[in-house]
């Protein structure tokens, strides 16, 4: 490693998120102040105009998501950042971005809830809200980084997936990951891939919601001499509203398929000492840091423990979890909520091995010793 290199920094997750946004080409941010996410907006308020981009503090979160969808429609990469209460307010238009297939990234730095809850304390309580917060049947992509460096990488990945699949992507940080200052070495610009939305090849007979082999229609930027209609109503390939049952079904099935069909491309997990593990832990975000520490403590105590870390939360890593359920004797799922992912794990495991929850909702992080004690407990069951 290059000592004293400019790339080595002590940075918080929120700052890394803002830096990555700039690196991936975000040139529009609209947001509303909310703890513990505000640093993302603060950094971008300073940096975007330097990069020929625009920052705006909107009047509320409803407006923030509307503005980023509008900006993205013109071809500009756009994002917003918020926390639980603001995320609740954004839900309707997250559905709009899904329905109208407009790429954008929503960062949710999770804090304790419900309601105003615990503004300055960590939580992982919005896992299910990320999945089902907006009404109607839909697929969603949500990622959860566990380190500052990974915040950087996943912010870029969030945009890449959003552009590639023409869908909103939710980046789930939590207060710990957002605020911890950590040593990080950023990749150089040529060390990461940038994916941009598929553009149409020709103006002739452009169908904004065309059925294609990939299920992802090419997207023309508003104001680029393609004139078409965008609506949140059920629409046909032309983009205009329809009440034709066949056309409605065609649209909704394609929206479902374009994510489900690409699950393998979207889902990422990290295996940590799982090969010979008898005790498996499934964790994500800051709880995965407690869990990794606990795995080491358990190994030191002679207990073969490993972790499957969920980097992608949605779509769910069902296949990976089921595969490893043939190897481990039991799963422990520590979370800073009442067991939102544990429930999904139980469904994926389908009774092959026991699944134990370890939950904390009092605003404190999970101490690795707590997980170790849980491991010791379950071994003797």
């Amino acid at each position, binding site marked *: *490693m290059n*000592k*004293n290199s400019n790339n*080595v*920094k*002590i940075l918080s997750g929120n700052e890394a998120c803002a830096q990555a946004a700039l690196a991936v080409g975000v040139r529009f941010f609209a947001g509303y102040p909310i*703890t*513990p996410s505000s640093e993302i907006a603060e950094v971008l308020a300073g940096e975007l105009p330097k990069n020929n981009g625009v920052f705006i503090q909107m009047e509320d979160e409803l407006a923030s998501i509307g503005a980023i969808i509008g900006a993205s429609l013109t071809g500009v990469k756009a994002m917003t950042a918020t926390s639980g209460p603001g995320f609740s307010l954004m839900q309707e238009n997250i559905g709009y971005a899904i329905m109208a297939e407009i790429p954008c990234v929503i960062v949710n730095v999770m804090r304790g809830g419900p309601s105003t809850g615990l*503004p*300055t*304390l960590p939580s992982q309580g919005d896992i299910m809200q990320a999945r089902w917060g907006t009404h109607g049947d839909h697929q969603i992509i949500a990622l959860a980084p566990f380190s500052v460096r990974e915040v950087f990488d996943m912010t870029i990945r969030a945009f890449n997936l959003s552009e590639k699949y023409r869908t909103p992507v939710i980046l789930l940080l939590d*207060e*710990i990951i957002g*605020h*911890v*200052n*950590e*040593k990080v070495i950023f990749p150089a610009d040529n060390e990461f891939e940038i994916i941009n939305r598929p553009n149409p090849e020709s103006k002739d007979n452009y169908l904004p919601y065309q059925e294609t082999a990939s299920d992802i229609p090419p997207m023309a930027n508003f104001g680029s001499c393609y004139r078409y209609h965008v609506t949140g109503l059920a629409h046909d390939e032309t983009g205009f509203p329809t009440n034709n049952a066949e056309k409605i079904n065609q649209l909704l099935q394609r929206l479902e398929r374009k994510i489900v069909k690409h699950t393998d491309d979207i889902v990422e997990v990290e295996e940590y000492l799982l090969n010979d593990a008898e005790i498996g832990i499934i964790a994500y975000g800051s709880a995965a*840091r*407690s869990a*990794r*520490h606990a795995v*080491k403590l358990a190994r030191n105590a002679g207990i073969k423990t490993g972790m499957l870390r969920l980097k992608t939360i949605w779509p769910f890593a069902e296949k990976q979890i089921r595969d490893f359920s043939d190897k481990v004797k039991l799963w422990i799922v520590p979370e800073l909520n009442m067991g939102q992912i544990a429930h999904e794990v139980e469904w994926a495991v389908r009774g092959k091995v026991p699944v134990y929850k370890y939950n904390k909702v009092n605003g404190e*992080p999970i*101490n*690795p*010793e707590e997980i170790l004690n849980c491991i010791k407990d379950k071994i003797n069951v």
Partner: protein
Amino acid sequence: MSIRYEVRLSGEGGQGLVLAGKILAEAAAIYDNLNATQSQSYGPEARGGASRSEVIISDDDIDYPKAVNIDLLLALTQESFDRYQNDVKEGGIIIVDEQSVTRISEGKFLLYKIPIIKLAREKLGHALVANIIALGIIAGISKIVSENALKQAIGARVPKGTEELNYNAFQIGLEESEKLVAVKTAE
């Protein structure tokens, strides 16, 4: 075997403990090429109230970024000493501001009493630099980061034009710690 060294800087808002934590972490991570994380307790108030900043230093990956078994506690107020002394591991170090922390309870820790805030005020004319004096003391006592690394980290973080003042503060802290170490060795 990897090292994991946990530092908690505690006192009240406005004493610059969050900045001191960042400097300590940067010294370790950027200039000493170790790993470091820094986090802080985060209250609704921007000024006043209890303040806490934690630094974990390691030569390995740092998984859990919060202190669980503290190696070194700095307490600039009685309240912070009372609240955190039990979190210090057996044989760990507690550095207190001599004037502010007057009621010391027994414990299996090594205690250093230094008039940090008084030194800042009397020798440098600014109570504000007590945090940097504290960094000098921590460097001298713990040796967890090098003097050179800390000095570079201070230079990179403090406001332009205040470098000399802060280097002096750091030097005073180092000298104090040398005295203390000497005293202890003689005991």
